[in-house]
């Protein structure tokens, strides 16, 4: 019992020590600082071969930079490869690091004052990182919507072609991190009213939706395109499997679904308008 306690205390001590090491700033750790200096010196030396970077908007951009890189590659192929390799190492180990050691600042401090920004301009030219903005779509939590659809119950057969209309209400749960958007999956369930020719059915409808992509041009985010599949049943003579695509523009949406009537074995379709598509407001 006493021995187990000692093991437990030793483990807790080790955990505390690991945590303390993880919190130490990179420049306060000899190995990390040495690595930052090694990479900063190396990239500064290699960028020195390329000379002055021509910034965006200046005459000769980007041709001057491209020709400098091409000339560097032609004259010193090994150094050119080393240049690209070092940029990858700097990116992974320092610039894009998400740890708590402030590695970016430590690397920044190892760059020479008079040429550091020119070196970084070449690094960024090669990295060519585009800004990433989070998606506005598929926000986590509960939503509700009303959907009105109409189409044909059997569009492949002229003989059996019949009107099909639906009014459905859905409760939606979207999977995403708390208070965040950009999820991929939603589950939907709710009651429906279907009109098949002149026969009405009350149904229970379920659906799964998967976000395929967003409709956005920075800074404007308009909506998303999603794929869905579902099942609508009256638990009697009305039984439809559906699959389709939807364009969702905020509170408004449009979808097109192919339906398979599992009772009569025939294909139909529905075009729908999504309305009142909104989050549940917390009271």
């Amino acid at each position, binding site marked *: 019992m006493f021995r187990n306690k000692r093991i437990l205390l030793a483990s807790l001590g080790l955990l505390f020590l690991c945590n303390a090491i993880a919190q130490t700033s990179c420049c306060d750790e000899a190995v990390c600082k040495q690595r930052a200096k090694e990479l900063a010196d190396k990239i500064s030396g290699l960028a020195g071969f390329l000379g002055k970077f021509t910034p*965006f*908007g200046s005459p000769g951009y980007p041709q001057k930079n491209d020709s400098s890189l091409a000339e560097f590659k032609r004259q010193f192929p090994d150094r050119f490869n080393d240049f690209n390799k070092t940029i990858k190492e700097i990116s992974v180990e320092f610039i894009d690091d998400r740890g708590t050691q402030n590695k*970016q600042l430590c690397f920044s401090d190892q760059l020479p004052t008079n040429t550091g*920004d020119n070196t*970084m*301009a070449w690094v960024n030219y090669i990295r060519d*990182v585009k800004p990433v903005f989070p998606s506005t779509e598929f926000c986590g939590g509960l939503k509700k919507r009303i959907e009105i659809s109409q189409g044909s119950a059997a569009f492949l057969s002229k003989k059996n072609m019949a009107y099909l209309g639906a009014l459905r209400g859905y409760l939606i749960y979207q999977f995403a991190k708390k208070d965040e958007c950009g999820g991929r999956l939603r589950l939907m369930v709710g009651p429906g009213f279907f009109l098949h020719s002149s026969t009405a059915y009350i149904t229970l409808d379920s659906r799964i939706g998967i976000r395929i992509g967003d409709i956005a041009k920075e*800074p404007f*985010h308009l909506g998303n395109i999603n794929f869905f599949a579902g099942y609508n049943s009256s638990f009697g003579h009305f039984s439809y499997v559906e699959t389709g695509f939807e364009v969702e523009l905020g509170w408004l949406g449009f979808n097109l679904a192919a339906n398979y009537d599992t009772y009569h074995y025939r294909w139909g379709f529905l075009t729908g308008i999504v309305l009142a598509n909104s989050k549940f407001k917390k009271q």
Partner: protein
Amino acid sequence: MKVLITSGGGAKGAFSVGVLRHMKDDLGISNFDLISGTSTGALIASLASIGDINTLANIYLNTTNADILKPQNLVDAIVGGKPFVYNTDPLMKQIDQNINPATFQSIMNSNCTLCFNAVSLQSGRVTVFATKNIAQASQYDTKIITSRDMFIKALLASSNQAVFMNPINIGSDDYVDGGNREVVPTRVVVQNLDTDENHEVYIISNNPNDLLQFPGKKYSSILDVLIRAINMFVQEVRENDLEVMAKYKTFFDLNKQAPNLKMKIFYFCPEFDLDPEFSTGLRFERGRMLQWMSTGKRIADQIFQASPNGNFPMFHPANPPIV
């Protein structure tokens, strides 16, 4: 008086942080009597007032767009009465974490008078939020910060670019970025300087002196024209702001109460537009911010070496100062 003025510019604020790091680490300049900041410069000003430049540097070098902006669905924004394209709740969280109660107390207890400005949508006027009493002037309204909540809201108000980000409600007004009327916040500074003492003023602008020219470029997209119009507007505002300081320098030299009194003004700005592709400053990309921080350090080093008595006003030869 030792004064720091930090301008707006979003992610380009990394340039200001680079200047401040050089000033603190290499020259030991980190205590100021008065700091005036706009937008990203207000965020910088708050930690600069307690000399915590390392935290500032780490904030900039660790921030991405997702850490501060949450895009707003445009359809919902139009229909739902949300007049902005980005929600800044994540930025609010960042400020809340970095200006914790202890940091806030340090700022309020420091000897530095901290000012940051925002523009009221209702009055259209600049409001200067200050940590201590400051001189009143006809060019701006004043509000004294009384709580951490007010401090955070005022910081956010100063930072939130109108239309792009959500206005911030404080009291009965909705506030947006102070840069709408004052990008380099000089007015509150000149109102608080006297002619009976020496002054050292450090002005950091995250934008270059001249607007970038694009000869032959065809402007066929609404967004391109809009961004270009914003750039021209910001350029005009900052030129006016600098002229205010240039005029005060002339006034000081003519009216100083002893011949040996001096006013040294150091002006730091990049040679080129740091991010012409995203000139509103909304590209928070770590590699680029690291580059801009290095630019700030280099420019500061060059200016302190070349002009130990200050380098401002320094006007374009074709455009001499109006005094």
